[in-house]
C-alpha cells in the first residue's frame, strides 16, 4: 500500500488549522478481478480499482465528510475545504452539537495472510470453476431442465490507512473472495424454482477448494429438483417449525443486528433504512425473547467475511452481545452514538470504500448454539416443517414484522424428515420469534451477505449464522 502518509498528516494539520476539533483521514484502496458466466460460457471479465481518500471533520459541532480520488496535494486540500465549508454552510440548521466519545484509539498494522495469495488467482481459475459447476449441475438434474446457471466470482483486496487528529493510526489489508450461483430449475407442468447461492470469506485462493462449491450446489440442486417435482403445501394449522441455520443467520441479522444499531435507534437512518423498535431506555432491561435468545456480533472471527480488528474510527474491535438470554443487552456504537448514550464505542464504524462515510455496521452476527444434535431437535415433533433455505425475505423499517419464504423445505413426521414442502411462508414478529424458541442445536454455521445501509447506500461484507432452531406452534403461510 503505497501512499504518502506525510500528505495525510498535512491534511489533518490543515483541518485543525481552520478550526476543526477532529479530523479523520482514510486512504482506501479496493481492488480485484471478476468473472461472470452464463451456462458455462464467459460473459465478461472485469477488474475494479477504487482508490481515494475520505476526510471527515467535526467543526463547531457540525460533521462534514468529503471524498476524492484526486490524490494530489491540491486535490486533497480541495476535498478538505469542501468538507469544512459545506459543513459550515448547513450549521444554521443544527440544533445540537455533534460530539464524539473519548476513546483509546489504536496504533496498529494488521493483515490477513491467506494460504494462497489473491494475486495468484487467475481468471482461468475462476472460469474453470464456473464451467465445472455448470457441467456437474447438468449431470445432477434428471426430470427438470436447468435453463439458467449464472456463475459469478470475484477477488477483493481491501487496503486502508486511517489516521486521526487524536492519534489513531491503523493500517490494514484484508483479502476476500466471493462466489455466487443463480439457478433456475424448470419443469413444464410444475413451473420454475430459483436459487441464489453465495460463498464469501476473508482469505485467499484456498477458499475455492475449502468451500467445495460444486459439491455443495450439486447436492442442493438434487434436493430442489425433488421439491419442485413433489413439493406439497405446508400444513394450514399451527405446527412446530424448525428453522434452518441459513434462515436463522439472516433472521438475527435483520431482527437483532439492525435494530441494535445505535444510529438507527436514534433516527439517523430514519428516511432510508428506517428506525428501530428498540428505544434507548429498553437497553439492559427489555425482554425480547426467552433464555435461548442470545445474539452475538463479533468482527474478530478469523476467516470471517466481516473481519476487522479496528474500526474505521480507529477503535479496537471486540465481540458484542446484542441480546443476552432474551434481554436487549448492548447496541452497536460508533464514537458519536456512544457519546449520546454515555458509553464507550464498541467499534462498529465501517466504510464501504474511500467515498463512503464510516457508519455503524454489523460484521458477523449469530445466534448462540446449544448442545443437541439436529436429530434430537426434531425427535419429538409429531407434525412439523423444516425450512432449510430461502429466497424471498423482508422486514419492516423498525425491524419487527418479517417474512422468510422457504425454498428447500420438508414436512417432519414423527421425528423424521418426510416429503418436501413448496414455498412455506414464515411471517413473524421479532418478539414472536425470540419468545417461541423451544430448542437450538449445536451446529453453528455461517452464511455470507452484503449488508446495505446509508446514503448513498453502502454494501459491506458480513457473515450471519446460527444453529437450527425449533419454534413452537407457528401458522405458516403459502405464496398466494
Amino acid at each position: 500500500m503505497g501512499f504518502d502518509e506525510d500528505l495525510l498528516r498535512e491534511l489533518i494539520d490543515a483541518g485543525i488549522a481552520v478550526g476543526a476539533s477532529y479530523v479523520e483521514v482514510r486512504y482506501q484502496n479496493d481492488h480485484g478481478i471478476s468473472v461472470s458466466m452464463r451456462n458455462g460460457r464467459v460473459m465478461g471479465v472485469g477488474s475494479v480499482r477504487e482508490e481515494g481518500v475520505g476526510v471527515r471533520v467535526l467543526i463547531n459541532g457540525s460533521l462534514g465528510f468529503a471524498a476524492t480520488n484526486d490524490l494530489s496535494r491540491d486535490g486533497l486540500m480541495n476535498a478538505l475545504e469542501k468538507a469544512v465549508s459545506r459543513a459550515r454552510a448547513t450549521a444554521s440548521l443544527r440544533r445540537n452539537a455533534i460530539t464524539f466519545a473519548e476513546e483509546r484509539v489504536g496504533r496498529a498494522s494488521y493483515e490477513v495472510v491467506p494460504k494462497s495469495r489473491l494475486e495468484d488467482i487467475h481468471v482461468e481459475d475462476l472460469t474453470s470453476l464456473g464451467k465445472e459447476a455448470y457441467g456437474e449441475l447438468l449431470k445432477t438434474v434428471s426430470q427438470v431442465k436447468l435453463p439458467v446457471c449464472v456463475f459469478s466470482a470475484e477477488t477483493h483486496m481491501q487496503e486502508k490507512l486511517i489516521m486521526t487528529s487524536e492519534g489513531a493510526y491503523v493500517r490494514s489489508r484484508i483479502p476476500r473472495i466471493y462466489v455466487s450461483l443463480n439457478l433456475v430449475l424448470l419443469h413444464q407442468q410444475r413451473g420454475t424454482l430459483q436459487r441464489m447461492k453465495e460463498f464469501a470469506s476473508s482469505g485467499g485462493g484456498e477458499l475455492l477448494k475449502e468451500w467445495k462449491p460444486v459439491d455443495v450446489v450439486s447436492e442442493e440442486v438434487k434436493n430442489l429438483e425433488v421439491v419442485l417435482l413433489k413439493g406439497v403445501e405446508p400444513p394450514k394449522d399451527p405446527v412446530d417449525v424448525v428453522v434452518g441455520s441459513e434462515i436463522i443467520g439472516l433472521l438475527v441479522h435483520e431482527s437483532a443486528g439492525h435494530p441494535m444499531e445505535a444510529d438507527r435507534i436514534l433516527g439517523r437512518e430514519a428516511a432510508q433504512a428506517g428506525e428501530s423498535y428498540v428505544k434507548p431506555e429498553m437497553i439492559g432491561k427489555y425482554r425480547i425473547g426467552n433464555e435461548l435468545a442470545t445474539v452475538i456480533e463479533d468482527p474478530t472471527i478469523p476467516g470471517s467475511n466481516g473481519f476487522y480488528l479496528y474500526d474505521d474510527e480507529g477503535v479496537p474491535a471486540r465481540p458484542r452481545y446484542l441480546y443476552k438470554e432474551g434481554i436487549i443487552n448492548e447496541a452497536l456504537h460508533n464514537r458519536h452514538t456512544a457519546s449520546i448514550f454515555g458509553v464507550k464505542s464498541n467499534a462498529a464504524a465501517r466504510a464501504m470504500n474511500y467515498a463512503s462515510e464510516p457508519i455503524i455496521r454489523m460484521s458477523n452476527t449469530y445466534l448462540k448454539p446449544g448442545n443437541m444434535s439436529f436429530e434430537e431437535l426434531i425427535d419429538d415433533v409429531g407434525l412439523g416443517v423444516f425450512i432449510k433455505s430461502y429466497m424471498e425475505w423482508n422486514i419492516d423499517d423498525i425491524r419487527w414484522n418479517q417474512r422468510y419464504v422457504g425454498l428447500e423445505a420438508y414436512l417432519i413426521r414423527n421425528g423424521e424428515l418426510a416429503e418436501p414442502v413448496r414455498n412455506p411462508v414464515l411471517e413473524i414478529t421479532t418478539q414472536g420469534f425470540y419468545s417461541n424458541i423451544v430448542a437450538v442445536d449445536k451446529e453453528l454455521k455461517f452464511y455470507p451477505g452484503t449488508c446495505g445501509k446509508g446514503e448513498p447506500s453502502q454494501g459491506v461484507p458480513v457473515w450471519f449464522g446460527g444453529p437450527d432452531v425449533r419454534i413452537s406452534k407457528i401458522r405458516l403461510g403459502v405464496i398466494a
Partner: protein
Amino acid sequence: MTGTIELGREVVNKLRASYDNVAVLIKTRDRVMVKLWNTEPSVTQSWITTEVSLLLTKSKRVLILEFSVGRPEEILKAVEKISSVVERVEESELYAPLPEPQEVKLVEGSFDAKVIDAMRDPGKLTKLMIDAALSEGAERVAGTLTLSNDERVLVTSKGFENSERRTLVEAYLRAFKKEFSGQWAHGSTHVNEKEIEEVGRKAGLYASITSNKADLQPGKYDVVLSPLVVGNLMNYVSFMSSALAVLMGYSMFMKFRPGDKIASEKLTLVDTPRDPTLPNVASFDDEGVPTYDKPIIEDGVFHNLLHNSGTATKLGVKSTGNAGWVMPNPWNLRMKPGELREEELVSELRNGVIITNNWYTRLQNYVEGTFSTVARDAALLVKNGEVVGNVGRVRIATSFPQLLNNIEEMTRQTYDIMWWEVRTPTRAPYVLARNVNLTKPYI
C-alpha cells in the same frame, strides 16, 4: 470538459493498436448531500471524483476495467497489468463490435446553473423542505437533499467522441408525528423551490392525516399505491426488462414475448432517456448509440426488452440505446397517466387501503415474478371513501403479473420520484389496483 475528452482520447489512442475495440467512459462529479435526522443535519457529504471505465475487446474476448483514478498514466499502467488476461479468457457469448458512430442530437436543457449556486449553500433548500413539513404539523423530520454537477464523456476506437453535462436535485423527506409518519420524494435536473417545498408538505400531510390506528386482517384488498410505491415496483419491472436480466434468469419476461398482453390496458411504461428534466437524461448510451424513448409495456402489451449491442446481437435484434456495457439499463421511467384526480381515485377505491410508501421489495422467483414488499409510513384504511385510520406496516405479497393485470385506474397528475428505494427516476401517478393480497404476522 475538453480536458476530460482529451484524457479519453489519449487512453484510446494508446490502446487501439493492442485491441479490436476500445471504449473509455469518464464520469466526473461534484456532489453535495445534506443528510437530516431529528430535524437537523447529521452530516454534510461531498464527493469530488473522476471514474474511468474501459471496455477492451480482442478476438471476441471482453474485458471491462473500472478505475476511480483520473490520471492516464495510472490507467495505462493498470491496463498493462491485466492485458495478459485477455489472451487467456474465452470468447464472450455477449461479444459484439462497438457500433459505428451515428449522429447524436444532444438533449438540451439538462443543466441548471441554479443547482451550482445552490451547492454553495445547500442549507437554504433543505430548510424549505423542513419548514413545509413542520407547517403541516410534523414533529420531526429526516431525509436528504442532494445537489450534483456531473459530466459524462465517451470516446471509442470507432471514432465516437461526445460529452454531456447534467445537474441533479434529489430531495426526500420523512416526517413524523407521534407514532405516525409520511414520506415524499422528488428528483429533477433543475431546482424548483415549489417542488422541494412540496416534498416537505406531502410528507407532513401524510404524517398528520390520521391519528387513529386501524386493524387489518390478512386477505385480498383493493389498494391505491402512491407514486413512491409505483416507482419502486416499476424499477423492478424495468430491471427485469433488461435483456441481460432475461438471459440471467432475473426476469419474468423469460416467460413472455413482445406482443404478449401482460398487464392491464391502463399500464404504459416508457423508458425515457431524452426528457431533460429527469435526472438520468442521456443523449447517447455507453456504446455511443443515440438514445430514444421506447415503451417497455404499452397499453398492457409487452413491447421491448432493453438492449446493448451484445444482448441485441445475441438475440438477433437492434440495440435500443440502453448500454451498459454488460447490463442494459433503463434511463428514466415514465408512466402514462390516467384521467382521475387523486380524490376521485380514492372515491373509486371506496373501501380498501392507500399505501403511500414501501420498502424492501424482494422476489421469491424472478421468472414467476412472485414478490413481497413492506408498507411504511401512512398505510391508510379507507371505508366508504373516507380515511378511517392507519393499518401500519402491512405487506403486499403477490406477483408482478397479477398486480399489473389488476391495475384499474390512475391519476392524471404524475410526480417525478427519486429516493433511496427508487434509483431509476420515475414519473408516476397514483394507481388503483383491485384484489391485492395483503399480509401481516399472526404472532
